[in-house]
């Protein structure tokens, strides 16, 4: 079966340890969904703000990127 998720959200990190570190962080763990790979994890579309807030409280300042720009594909946040 092929599932096409629209308005999906995910977290991408640039090294393997970063995601593991995040998942080990109390308060952030529950906001992160299943891991799609060692550097990508699924996020609940409706809990993005909670995740951002949890990350901020844990000392992280994630980059927000939206993928809705039809021409660029690299929509800046």
């Amino acid at each position, binding site marked *: 079966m092929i599932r096409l998720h629209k308005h999906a959200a995910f977290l991408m990190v640039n090294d393997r340890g970063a995601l593991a570190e995040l998942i080990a962080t109390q308060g952030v763990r*529950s906001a992160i969904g299943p891991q799609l790979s060692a550097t990508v994890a699924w996020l609940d579309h409706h809990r993005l703000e909670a995740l951002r807030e949890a990350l901020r409280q844990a000392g992280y300042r994630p980059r927000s990127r939206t993928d809705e720009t039809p021409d660029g594909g690299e929509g800046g946040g």
Partner: protein
Amino acid sequence: MEGSAIRSQGPVGDTRADSRSLAELLGEYSEAAVRDLAQLLGVARGGTHRALCERVARAVLKADRLRASLKGLSRVERDFLAFIGRLGGDVEPAQAAWWLSYHGTSSSLNTTRRLIARALLFPFLVPPPPADPMTEAARPHHSPEPRLTPSAFPGALWCPESIRRLAGGGALPTLPAQPEPPQMDRAALPDLVRDLFVLVRFLSAKQPRTTRTSRHLDQANLAELAAALGRPQAARPARRLEDVPELLWLESVALQAGLVEVRDRRLTATASAEALAQRPPIEQCRLLLEAASAQTGWGELEAEEELAVARPAALSPGELDVPPPGARVRARRRIVQALTQAASPGTWHRIADLAEWLMESGPDFLIRRRLPDRAGATEAGEPIYRGIRRNASGEPQSIGMATGWPWVEGAFVAGFLRAALRRVGVVDTAGDLFRLTDLGARVLGLAGETEAASEEALPPGRFFVQPNFEIIADGGGDNLAAVARLSQVADLVSFDRAALLKLSRESVCRALDQGLSSAAVMDVLSDSGRSPVSQNVAFSVGEWIAAYERYQVWSEAWVIEVDSASELGSLQEELPGCLERLGPTAARVLPQHRARVEQVLTQHPDVLAIDHAAGLRAVFDVDDRLVVTPDPSRWHWYPEHVLSQIADSFRGKRGGPRYRITRESILRALESGWTADEIEHFVEQCAARPLSAAQVLSLRGWLGRYGPVALAPAVLLRLPIDSRADILAVPELREALLGAASPSVCVVRCDEVAKVRRLLQCAGFTVEDGLALDPLGGPTPASPPTQPIGPNHAWAQRRWRTGDPEEARQALLAEVVDTGRPIAISYCSVITGEEPQEWVLIPERLEDTRWGLARLHARCRERGERRTFDVSRIDSIVVLSEP
């Protein structure tokens, strides 16, 4: 329509005489042709058939005859024909009368009449619209046609192109040059941009409200703004908004240029406001020139000290020559256009000459010309401006429309040049003189402005970044671009003669959020490499950027999920360049290929589209025992992931995955960071049917929504209703009662039964036995132990104290280590001098040392530190009921 369409009206004078002279003069031409021409002119008044009219005129009017007619004309009459030519060939009677009066013609009527008599001008009327049959029927037959008054003359005077060409004239000459003045007011674009920068900062920080009736700030906010702009004389609260014209003008320009906008009666800065200071001067000048020209006010005239302009409220609109907003905008654009045609860049000219030039190029510049009417006229018979007077001598003095051009329209031109055009950088001014600046000439297209000019290199900024992350910059207007660039990556703390900015992690991340690249951030701080940044600042900023880039939260993406890596591989082959792999079984759809991917997927048999914006709906079914059965057609990795955290998974009879939500699984999820709200919301949202009351009770109970409840043995006291108030008024009795079960039954604590009985008997009640209830069985204990139930009742009240068996302490500790329950202990530390100290711990493991001493390794919940405790020094242990 017959030839009667040719009429002479208004300034042309007597109808019969003019018709006669016209007929005589045109007698030499083909009378029928002239009549046809007149008919055409009447139809062509709208301009649609203008070219046709001209062709007919050329055919009818003979050149040699025209030359003879032109020979005897005076200079003014020739100029008049040239003036009509500049207007396009048509002139209205009021305009003609005004022009001739301005040029000293003793009788504009006679001049016009003479030109008509020589067949050099043609008066015509626009045919009246077809009469309404109903009105026509109602009008008596003997009623005369409505008489046309001069001011309502609906026609014009026409000078055909063939005559205009022979009469000469044409384009106006350029303005004469003047000597350079000793002092001047230089163009002040940097100051204006600085003021707008401060205005935008003020609005961003304060978001002030506008007045109820306008888009302007109220007086208090204007005073604060004036102080922020460094204008102390304007900082005093004004009595009226009109008393601070400069601030209002600044505000209007910002609104017109799109730098600020009104949202919910609040003046807020737009996204483009931040970028203004960083744009090249030529772009700033263009934007602000357009905004200044498009102002709907006419402050230029009101600012003129030698004029008194009646406020609209003083006179009714029909009695006041207030130009409509559109006319004010058109007038300013004509001034700008006149500069391009009449002024030479870098050369000084008189403002009065420019006003004269504008007058010659068209009469209805600001205020429409009128014929004399009831509003009054000067002694010379010219109409006066209504609502505009000269008051230089203190005495009101009417201004005639012809001779008053320099006082009214000329004042408007001067006001626009000295205020707006000088502030936006187009002109320098000096008293009655002005000159186009280089920038102005480039903006107006008079100098070689090229595209390269807009890409010119930014001047070096005057600032330095201190090792303590503060940036000090020159606050001057020519350094504003640097300050604006810096304020993108640092917080502007203060801005005066010097600007102080503070660099922080948050400010750098904000800049990155706004789309600045990491290289651009460093570029701004180092002023494009011209000013080195201290090592510690560069290192910290680099670290902040690296941390920012490390985690990226993507939203609004399209993601494809498949069951196997090979399936995703074949899909990628089918859609080359459309997918970006995120993992073995997941890929992101590139936004530009979404339509194609969707189209291709429609050809696949088994595709499920899930819109997460709509939320998860009916993903699983929940039975009465809170066992969750997924719906395979809606199942995907996210609900699976959440359920694996909040429920225990097992295989159903048919082999499919199923989940059981239990108290333990909920407690586990709560400990791992899920909140009760999130769990409850997820289950309620994803369940195919609404949860039953029993399901909700269990779920909420396990989530700890309810406080603890207790069952305790008690005695019910049945009492007469009328005695209830008196009994409860006795303090001893009230304390012995636990509450009321009904109006006639109270609950008595078991250990207070004897006391209640005694007190009631003393009060004269006959106390009967018979309602004692002991649901727990056995004799009523003196201090009945409470047995709480609820989410954590198995753990509540588990404790160990000094004096209890040592094995019980070990067993309890082993139990809490296994389950991870938090405990509160009283601990006698050697360091604290044997004074017991309270600790709340998350036990992690027990350790037996080789000397036979047991140690507890645990994490302090309050401090978040790991500690080791000697078990023998623990005085008491209480297992906490909260998770």
